[in-house]
C-alpha cells in the first residue's frame, strides 16, 4: 500500500439496490496515487455495477465516493427507496450528489467498457481526437468559425503523439471497428488516456484475448501507469493478469466485499477460495 501518497479514490459504504435486489452491498475501498488496484469476483458479484456507480452511470442508493479528496457522489435512500431499502448505514449519509459521467471524466476519471464501445463510423485517429473535446477552451462560435485553429492543431498533434505512444500510429486512418480485437482494446485505452485522467478504470480489459495478447496487455497496462502517471482500477477475470500487476485486490461476492489485500494474501484467503470453488472462471 502506498499510504504515503494521497488518496485518489475513496469509496464509502456504497450500496446499489435495483427494486428488491441488492447488487452491491456496503462496498468500501481506497486507491492511492500510482496504484494498480483490481476488483475481482465470480460472475454476477456486482463488479461492473460498482464500476458503474463510481463512474456515475448509476446513482448509488446509499454511500459516498470521493475523488482526489473531493466528495463527488453521495446519496441516501430517498422517496420510494426509503421504505424499500435493504442495505446498511441508512442514516449515515445526508448529501445528494449525482453527477453525470461526463462531469467525473472532466474531474479526471476515464474508463473503458467490458464490451468495447468505440465510435464505429470513425477512424482510429478521430476516436482519440474526440476524447480531446473535453479539454477544449473554444466555444461553439470560435470552433465553428475557425478561431480555435491553434488549439485544434495542438489537439491533433497530441492525438497523433498518443497513437504513436500506444503503437497505433500505423492504423491511424483505419476505421476503428476494422482493427483486430486486441488493438481495439488498446485504442479504447488510448481514447480514455486522451482525456488526461488521473484515474483509469478498465472494465475487463483482457476479456476475449488469447494468452499471448494478455501478456502484451499486462505489460502495456504497467507501461501506461508509469508513462502517464495514472492510477488504475480494473475489473478482471484473468487471474494471471490480476496477480501479475495489481498491488491490491478487492474481492466481491454476491454484492458484498469478502476480502481485500495484496495478491499473495488473496491467493490464500479461505473465503475467496470458497467463493471461486467449483465456479472457477478462467474465461
Amino acid at each position, binding site marked *: 500500500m502506498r499510504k504515503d501518497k494521497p488518496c485518489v479514490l475513496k469509496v464509502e459504504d456504497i450500496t446499489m439496490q435495483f427494486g428488491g435486489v441488492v447488487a452491491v452491498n456496503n462496498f468500501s475501498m481506497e486507491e492511492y496515487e500510482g496504484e494498480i488496484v483490481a476488483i475481482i469476483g465470480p460472475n454476477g458479484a456486482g463488479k461492473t455495477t460498482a464500476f458503474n456507480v463510481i463512474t456515475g452511470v448509476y446513482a448509488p442508493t446509499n454511500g459516498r465516493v470521493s475523488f482526489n479528496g473531493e466528495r463527488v457522489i453521495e446519496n441516501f435512500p430517498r422517496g420510494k427507496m426509503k421504505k424499500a431499502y435493504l442495505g446498511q448505514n441508512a442514516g449515515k449519509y445526508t448529501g445528494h450528489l449525482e453527477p453525470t459521467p*461526463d462531469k467525473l471524466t472532466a474531474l479526471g476519471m476515464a474508463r473503458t*467498457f467490458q464490451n468495447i464501445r468505440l465510435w464505429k463510423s470513425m477512424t482510429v485517429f478521430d476516436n482519440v481526437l*474526440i*476524447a480531446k473535446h473535453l479539454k477544449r477552451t473554444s466555444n461553439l462560435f470560435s*470552433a*465553428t*468559425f*475557425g478561431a480555435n485553429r491553434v488549439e485544434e492543431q495542438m489537439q491533433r498533434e497530441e492525438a497523433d503523439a498518443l497513437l504513436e505512444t500506444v503503437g497505433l500510429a500505423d492504423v491511424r486512418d483505419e476505421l476503428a471497428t476494422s482493427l483486430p480485437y486486441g488493438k481495439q482494446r488498446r485504442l479504447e485505452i488510448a*481514447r*480514455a488516456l486522451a482525456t488526461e485522467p488521473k484515474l483509469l478504470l478498465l472494465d475487463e480489459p483482457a476479456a476475449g484475448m488469447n494468452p499471448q495478447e494478455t501478456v502484451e496487455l499486462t505489460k502495456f497496462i504497467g507501461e501506461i501507469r508509469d508513462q502517464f502517471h495514472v492510477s488504475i482500477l480494473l475489473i478482471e477475470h484473468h487471474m494471471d493478469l490480476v496477480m501479475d500487476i495489481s498491488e491490491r485486490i478487492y474481492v466481491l461476492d454476491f454484492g458484498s466485499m469478502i476480502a481485500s489485500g495484496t495478491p499473495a494474501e488473496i491467493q490464500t484467503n479461505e473465503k475467496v477460495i470458497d467463493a471461486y470453488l467449483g465456479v472457477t472462471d478462467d474465461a
Partner: protein
Amino acid sequence: MKQVNASQSSKKSSWISFLITLAFLALVFCLDQIIKPTNKMYMLLTVLQKGSVYALAAVSMNLLNGYTGLFSLGHAGFMLIGAYTYAIFTIPSSARDTVYQYFDAAIRVSFPEVLSNMMGPAGTALGVLAAVILAGLMAAFFAYLIGLPVLRLKSDYLAIATLGFAEIIRAMFQWQKLGPITNGSNLLKSFARTSKFKLEVGDTKLVLSTFVPVLIATASIFIIVKLVNSTYGRAFKAIRDDEVAAEAMGINLAKHKMISFTVSSFFAGVSGAMMAMVLSIAQASNFKSAMTYEILLMVVLGGIGSISGSVIGSLLFVAASEWWLRGLDSGTFLGINAPGVFRNGFRLVVFSIIIMIVVLFFRKGIMGEKEISDLFRARKKKARGAAQ
C-alpha cells in the same frame, strides 16, 4: 509525413469546393438576369429557389438526425416560427393594415423600412438580413424551451414528442387571440419577398430573386459544414455512434444535444424565413407534419449523414416533383400521350414509388455518408495510384 499530405489534400479539396461554389453563385446570378418569368426555362429558377429553401431545411435536419442521431420530427414547427418572424418584421407599414384586415396589428416595426430610413438602400438589404437572423433566433429560442423537457427522450419517443410540439406551435400561431401578432390563421403577405429583390446599378435593375435565397442557403450550409467539421461536430458524431461512450469520454450529453437541437432549429427558422420570401406568403396551415416528412425523405434520398447528399437530395426532390415529372400529371410524358393514366396525381404516385425504392433498396441514399469533396479526393488518389 502521411498526415501532412492528408491535411494538405483536404485543404486543396476544400479550396476546390469553395471555387466551385463561387462559380455556381455567379452562374445563378447570371441566370437570374437572362431567364425571364415567361420563359419556359424559368422553372429552373423556381426549382433553384425552392430547392435552396429545402436544401437548407434538409441540411439542418441532417445535422440533428444524421450527425447527432436525434430523430426529431419537429422541423415544420421551427420553420413556421421562422417564416412568421420574418414576415411580421418585414411588412411595410403601408401594407400592414391591409394584411391585418381583421385585427389591429400589434407589432408595427419593419426592419427594412427602419434601416433604409437610416442608411438608404443598403439598409433594406440589412433589414432583410436582420429579419432572417431574428427568424433563426426565434426558432432557436423555442427549440431551447422545447428541448429542455424532450431531449431526454429516446429515439421514437423523441420523434413523436417533437412532432407533437410542431403541431402545438401550429395551433398556437393560428389562435384567434394572438391575431394582432400572427394575423390569426390568415395568411401574411406583402412583406419583403424575393420577387421584389432588385439591385439598382445606374439605370439597370438587376434581378436577385433566385440569387438571394441561393446565397443565404449557401452561406448557412457553409456555416453548418464548418460546425460539423469542428470539435463540436465530432462530439455530435460521437453521441450518434455511442451515447454511453461519448458521455464516459466527458461529452456532456444534455448540453451537446441541446446545442445541436438549437443550431438545427436556428437554420430551420432561417429556411422558414426563406420559404416565406420565396413563396411571398406565410401561413401556419402550410407547415404541417407532411412538410417534415418530405424534408426527411429528401435527407434519406441524399444519404443520412452527408451534407452534400442532403443538398442534392432536396434539389432532385424539388426538381422531380415540381418540374420534370409534371408531364405525368397533364396527359403527356416521354412523348406518350395517355390522358387516362397520366392524370392529376400520377406524378406523386410515381414519385413516392421512387422514394420507396430508394428507402428499400438504396438505403444509403445517393451519397451515403460521403461528401462531394471526398469524391475529388478519391479521384486524385486513384489518379496518383495509376501514375505510379
